């Protein structure tokens, strides 16, 4: 039983990129408060729903009690020996305590507590009305929402993402009085800005979405999505064309409209001479239009763009074709600009633009892109020399050329206008100039991967210049003390470091971060940059990024990632290989693996308890067979990983896993704490040595064994 609750917070357009999160967080907070205040039945699950449009946050819930149940509470008073006189009658103190709560002395009860006998009162706490509680809960739930940047708009001083203008709160058929941000709740809502009514009276929460639909507001995001998708399908049916899928854009448009409707427009096919990247960027990023492409792929497997676009208007229909006409007009002007820029840019070669980079800031304290380019050329050369012969063949000249021309597109008009095309434009201009394809692709891909799980640069040449560019930025920023912390990462350094790890992992690049970062930092040639402190901070940062990458992106178990990185995190490729081997061996031999991990933890605990660090032991002091056996088997197993042996990490780990019986026998048969202090010392050293020898691939003490708390 209970009533239906409707809460609608209405106002001015909340930014599309945030509105869904804000609505969800508000609803979660509100539900939590309702539960906390015992307004929802603990047994029947209430029906709850949240929804939003750019102009409203909505929460609906069934089964909300009209008031809280009455509760009984025990209040503890003074000790019994104080509250009662020797004859058992109530003392003055006891009577005072009862009077304080408006109870007669006879109501005092004797209760036992761990601290002795006390007196207590049973107090009736009457439940509060839901209406009164909601008046507190709703503003609180809204204040609980985390906002990236809040604003004020009226004398109430309330802060929110954009101004709030109405408040609809109904419990059953009744308005719940709520005051918030200078607003008082009522039973009216608003329709669509230009098609709906300004004030619609609601009798009850029932059928709220239907009421809004009649006012050209689709409350459900799924309904808005379906309307967009059906509109697109209808617009392109039978044309041999299809929409270029863009989930991010679709999400934006769902969040930007109350009544989305598709408008198909055309543009002059002559614009198709421009690079598709430019056309799509103009349509998507600047106009929020979907691009349209041919259903049939071309010979190169790509689907050529068609001279059409799909705009999503926030209206029911384009009655007189004005809207289509208007969108076509704006797009034509944008494309004309883009064409002008593309043609202007091609009059000067990338090579001629190098000098202009003096005037483009890389970072205020780190100088211009001209200086950055010099460093990246140098670092790329070092990386290329280092990789040469160790990885598949690549063109060193293309690496050098790409590094030199890498940032030249920052001086082009297209990139000044459409900054999101940086890199890509450089690649396109390089190709148009007839520079080699390897150079063009490397420049084009330099900013990849754009996310930790996105594609890295396609070629080795691209991977090398991209690494050099990112490492240079990271080194410089860290030297300035710009180290990301918490949510503060204005230069997106985490993304850059994630990119470094992904490139190394996907292209299998053997690289020692410590050495390369030293070179990167030395490239700045600045006396005020403190090397060892900066490198230490960078390595710690990379350790965290590798941990993130291996756990979240490569999806390895947390304990395995930690075990591997605890040994060494300076070489991400090697860490990835050790991790893969560890994971494989653990899956192949789960029991032996668990036994070895447990034994190694036990060994570590023993030596740690004794604070023993000495690892030199003597063969002649080994008395028991079990310890002799252990020593020789550990030496054998560890020897596999040493110079002259070619055993892979998996073989080394299998050899260690095979030691399970010897380890068990050692603990069964050998008493480490022998009364003979020489034997004791030798055994402790043996354990320190064995622990170190067996932890070269992974630190087993990080491994979580089933049943053990992580």
């Amino acid at each position, binding site marked *: 039983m209970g009533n239906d609750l409707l809460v609608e917070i209405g106002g*001015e*357009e909340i*930014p*599309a*990129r945030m509105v869904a999160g804000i609505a969800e967080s508000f609803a979660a907070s509100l539900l939590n408060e309702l539960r906390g205040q015992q307004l929802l039945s603990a047994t029947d699950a209430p029906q709850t729903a949240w929804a939003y449009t*750019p102009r409203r946050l909505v929460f609906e819930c069934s089964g909300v009690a009209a008031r809280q149940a009455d509760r009984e509470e025990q209040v503890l008073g003074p000790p019994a020996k104080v509250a009662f006189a020797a004859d058992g009658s109530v003392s003055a103190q006891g009577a005072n305590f009862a009077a304080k709560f408006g109870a007669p002395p006879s109501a005092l009860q004797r209760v036992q507590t761990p601290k002795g006998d006390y007196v207590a009162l049973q107090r009736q706490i009457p439940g509060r009305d839901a209406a009164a509680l909601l008046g507190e809960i709703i503003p609180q739930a809204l204040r609980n929402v985390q906002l990236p*940047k809040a*604003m*004020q*708009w*009226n*004398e109430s001083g309330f802060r929110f*993402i*954009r*101004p709030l*203008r109405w408040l609809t709160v109904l419990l059953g058929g009744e308005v719940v009085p709520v005051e918030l941000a200078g607003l008082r709740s009522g039973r009216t809502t608003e329709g669509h*800005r*230009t*098609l709906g009514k*300004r004030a619609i009276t609601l009798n009850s929460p029932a059928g709220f979405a239907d009421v809004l639909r009649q006012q050209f507001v689709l409350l459900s995001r799924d309904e808005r999505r379906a309307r967009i998708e059906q*509109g697109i399908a*209808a*617009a392109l049916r039978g044309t041999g064309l299809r929409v270029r899928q863009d989930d991010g854009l679709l999400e934006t448009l769902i969040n*930007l*409209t109350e009544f989305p*409707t*598709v*408008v198909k427009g*055309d543009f002059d096919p002559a614009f198709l001479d421009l690079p598709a990247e430019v056309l799509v960027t103009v349509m998507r990023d600047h*106009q929020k*239009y979907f691009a349209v492409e041919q259903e049939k792929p071309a010979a190169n497997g790509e689907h050529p763009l068609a001279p059409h676009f799909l*705009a999503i*208007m*926030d*209206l029911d*229909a*384009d009655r*007189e*074709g*004005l*809207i*289509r*006409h*208007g*969108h076509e*007009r*704006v*797009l*034509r*002007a944008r494309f*004309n*600009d883009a064409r*002008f820029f593309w043609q202007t840019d091609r009059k000067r070669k990338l090579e001629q633009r190098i000098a202009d980079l*003096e*005037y*483009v*800031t890389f970072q*205020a304290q780190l*100088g*211009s892109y001209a200086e950055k380019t010099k460093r990246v050329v140098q670092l790329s050369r070092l990386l290329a020399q280092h990789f040469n012969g160790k990885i598949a063949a690549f063109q060193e000249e293309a690496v050098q050329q790409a590094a030199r021309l890498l940032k030249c597109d920052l001086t082009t008009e297209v990139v000044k206008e459409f900054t999101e095309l940086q890199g890509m434009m450089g690649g396109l201009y390089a190709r148009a100039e007839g520079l080699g394809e390897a150079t063009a692709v490397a420049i084009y891909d330099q900013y990849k991967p754009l996310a930790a799980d996105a594609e890295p640069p396609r070629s080795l040449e691209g991977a090398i210049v991209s690494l050099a560019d990112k490492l240079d930025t990271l080194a410089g920023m860290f030297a300035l003390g710009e180290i990301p912390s918490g949510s503060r990462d204005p230069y997106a350094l985490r993304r850059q470091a994630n990119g470094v790890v992904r490139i190394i992992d996907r292209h299998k690049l053997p690289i020692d971060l410590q050495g390369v970062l030293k070179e990167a930092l030395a490239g700045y040639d600045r006396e005020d940059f403190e090397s060892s402190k900066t490198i230490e901070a960078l390595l710690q940062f990379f350790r965290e990024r590798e941990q993130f990458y291996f756990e979240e992106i490569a999806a390895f178990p947390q304990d395995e990632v930690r075990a591997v990185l605890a040994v060494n995190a300076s070489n991400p490729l090697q860490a990835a290989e050790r991790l893969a081997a560890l994971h494989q061996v653990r899956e192949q031999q789960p029991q032996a693996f668990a036994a070895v991990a447990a034994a190694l933890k036990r060994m570590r605990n023993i030596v740690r308890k004794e604070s023993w660090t000495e690892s030199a032991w003597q063969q002649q002091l080994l008395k028991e067979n079990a310890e002799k056996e252990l020593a020789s088997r550990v030496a054998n197993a560890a020897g596999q990983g040493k110079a002259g042996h070619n055993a892979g990490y998996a073989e080394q780990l299998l050899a260690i896993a095979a030691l399970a019986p010897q380890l068990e026998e050692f603990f069964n048969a050998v008493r480490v704490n022998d009364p003979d202090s020489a034997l004791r010392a030798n055994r402790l050293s043996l354990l320190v040595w064995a622990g170190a020898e067996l932890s070269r691939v992974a630190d087993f003490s990080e491994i979580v064994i089933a049943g053990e708390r992580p």
Partner: protein
Amino acid sequence: MSQSTPTAEAAAASTNVAANRGLSFQEVLLKLQQFWAEQGCVLQMPYDLEVGAGTMSPETFLRVLGPQPYKVAYLQPSRRPADGRYGENPNRLYKHTQLQVILKPPPADVIALYLRSLEAIGIELAKHDIKFEEDNWESPTLGAWGLGWQVMLDGLEITQFTYFQQCGGVDLNPISAEITYGMERITAFLQDVESVYDIRWSGAFKYSDVRFADELQMSVYNFEKADVGKLWQHFELNEEECKALLTEYRQLSAQKEDAGSQAKLARFPLLGAYELCLKCSHLFNLLDARGAISVTERVGVIQRVRNLAVAIARGWTEQNAR
């Protein structure tokens, strides 16, 4: 989806657009000013110094400070030297016209009011796609920021709508709403012309008749002729004088309060200091267009202008609180 064929749609569009073609540039300017005057706004003159935006006029920058309510609307020719294109680009101008509206404090139905202003210039809301898209405004030179939207009309950005939160580094209370219309864009849309130069300014004259020479010659001046050495001298002279005034004001304001110092403070020309600061800001824009400001200098020069703006905003707030 509309069932009509593309040809029918195009025909319908052109007839409707033709109906709007009656509104000349000056009629649009007049109607919008008329609309806001009827809402109780003071109709101000454009500020008679070079500014990059209506926001820099003291009617915005200084009026939004302090507690006094205010409502104002004014046209502001806005000069952005780097945006000049010698009159060759159909959509870019060195100097464009803003209509700036400040509502302090904004009424609760401010957006409905704004939409009615569009109706006042002949835009039928039910026939157009209007969206409010996130746009957060920040001016490093003015130490100012606010949150709001760019208003999109059939895909064209026609207005910036901002709730000012801070100006000259001072937190604002009450908040002001700033509505900035781009007049050339709106009129080109209404007249359905592809180039701003084809806008009909009045019955007999086109935009190009009135403004082309200005765009061409000022682009030549801004990009080719402006004397960099002298620009720097002008900048430094203006800055020096502005700083001297601000120092004097600071000393005056630190003195013991008596009737004499009160009177001196009340008449102290912070408005004069602000004009010097605006000149610095424009000279900075000119130097920038000439490519005369290196990477390393840039941040520093912006900071110098900002220091002036922030000191003036603080002083003005204090001066008006006395």
